[in-house]
């Protein structure tokens, strides 16, 4: 089974890092993973999105997909292109603190997560994407929270290690917030085969 999860937001919101951590966590759990991110010209403030494919067997999909199983939106800006990739039943995670657009598709499973708010409460509004990823993990069981925390620690470059504690808090806050397994990624957990 190949599960596509696409992330979108404004540069600086931690979209790439969020996807990366989720991918790394899945790798730790012996899933097959493919991850591809794009961002606009300047470092922050532009559009940014990331496509993560997690599978229980070698991946056949190319790194850009036409349809996605799940979508994560940290902000309504730049959300438009993603909308087109949703199919009936797609799971949509919205950062309800900032997401302001009308949302009129009833064929989707929408999960609202006040990610920025959760992070702000911890004192680091910019860790919103961590809270979101935590929520995704809870709602989909695509990875476990411990893998996530470990992956986050691995991913932080040396000069950002000081953020680890806050990030972990945000991951856990998101994980706590979301209802468990409301949109399960795997019908049943298969043990990783030798290929993983």
């Amino acid at each position: 089974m190949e599960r596509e999860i696409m992330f979108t937001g404004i540069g600086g919101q931690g979209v790439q890092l969020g996807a990366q951590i989720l991918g790394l966590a899945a790798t730790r759990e012996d899933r097959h993973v493919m991850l591809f991110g794009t961002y606009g010209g300047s470092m922050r403030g532009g559009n940014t999105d990331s496509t993560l494919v997690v599978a229980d067997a070698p991946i056949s999909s190319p790194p850009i997909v036409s349809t996605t199983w799940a979508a994560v939106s940290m902000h309504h800006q730049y959300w438009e292109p993603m909308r087109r990739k949703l199919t009936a039943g797609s799971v949509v995670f919205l950062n309800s603190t900032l997401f302001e657009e009308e949302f009129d598709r009833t064929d989707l499973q929408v999960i609202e997560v006040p990610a920025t708010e959760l992070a702000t409460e911890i004192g680091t509004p910019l860790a919103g994407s961590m809270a979101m990823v935590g929520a995704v993990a809870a709602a989909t069981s695509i990875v476990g929270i411990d893998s996530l925390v470990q992956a986050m620690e691995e991913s932080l470059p040396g000069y950002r290690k000081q953020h680890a504690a806050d990030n972990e808090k945000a991951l856990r806050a998101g994980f706590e917030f979301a209802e468990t397994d409301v949109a399960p990624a795997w019908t049943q957990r298969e043990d990783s085969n030798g290929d993983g």
Partner: protein
Amino acid sequence: MTRRLMEGSEAMAEASIAAGCRFFAGYPMTPFTELLESFARRLPEAGGTCINAESELEAVGMAWGAASTGARAATGSTGQGLSLMQESFSEMTRAELPMVIFNMARGQGDYFQSTRGGGHGDYRHIVLAPADTQEAVEHTQLAFDLSDRWRNPVLIYGDYLTAHTSESVEIEPMEFPELPEKDWAVDGTLGGTGRSRTVNPLGVDKQSAGIDPEALWNRLQAKHDAIEREEVRVETGFLEDAEVVVVSFGGVARFVRHVVRSLRQEGHRVGFVRPVTLWPFPYEAVAAAAESASRVAVLEQNAGQMIDDVKIGVLGRAPIVAIGGISTDPSGFGVGDILDPAVIHERIRGVLSDA
């Protein structure tokens, strides 16, 4: 070594080091930047040197100097930066210097530049165009081997996808047949003996009265012909009864392969030819595929460049349809609309229904 989740850029740097690369110089530019960063981080640990060159012109010069000493050296860039290096690429090829060049392109608009040489004069690089991360790792190692073997620069045509897709890869040093000794490389030890060496693009040898272009050229031309004979690489799929043959390369070919596979599942008679080496170009494979097809579709992410080579291969055997186009994404990084399986699916369907 086991499989690790690694970004293409990092994997290519690791593969280079595994292949014995000890010198890299480059200047940041998206999507080449991460390759440079990976080399900067990893080469010193491996006993090599990575210089954050102050410009692409300086980067290629440094790599040229390093290669002259016999070290396995590489450089690279993206678009603009590659253009700036063309003077050096041309002359380095005449100097018969091994060198690996990473073109982490924005789209596929550099096909002409890569395959025909963007610089002055007659020269060619061997061009390898990997389609995914694991292949990028293998091509990187192959590039160092071919480059030393032929004493000719080898260019790897990557792109934003190759650079930025993370996948599980395995990096094992590959085995190659033994290479000739680098007796032409300068190490300083032969001064004063009358046998000191010259690494020289002008065809001037020690003690010579001047340029001997004929000898130089005959050697280069013979090498050129030999490479064209011996180094063609191509991947084909589903060609047997294909009515439509799709030709594409590099990162785009990965999409085409995926889409053709699903079209076959839907029962369509479609196959693909994927040049793995862009130079030498697999003219024969394209000609053979065109023999029985009723249409050859060319999908490239540019205004139409490889199509010239496809025409030269097909030579009128079947009509050729361009179904690609330049990448029009606003980032300018070459990640435009074409890179969508659904779009490619539709375009190939279009050709199928005309066929």
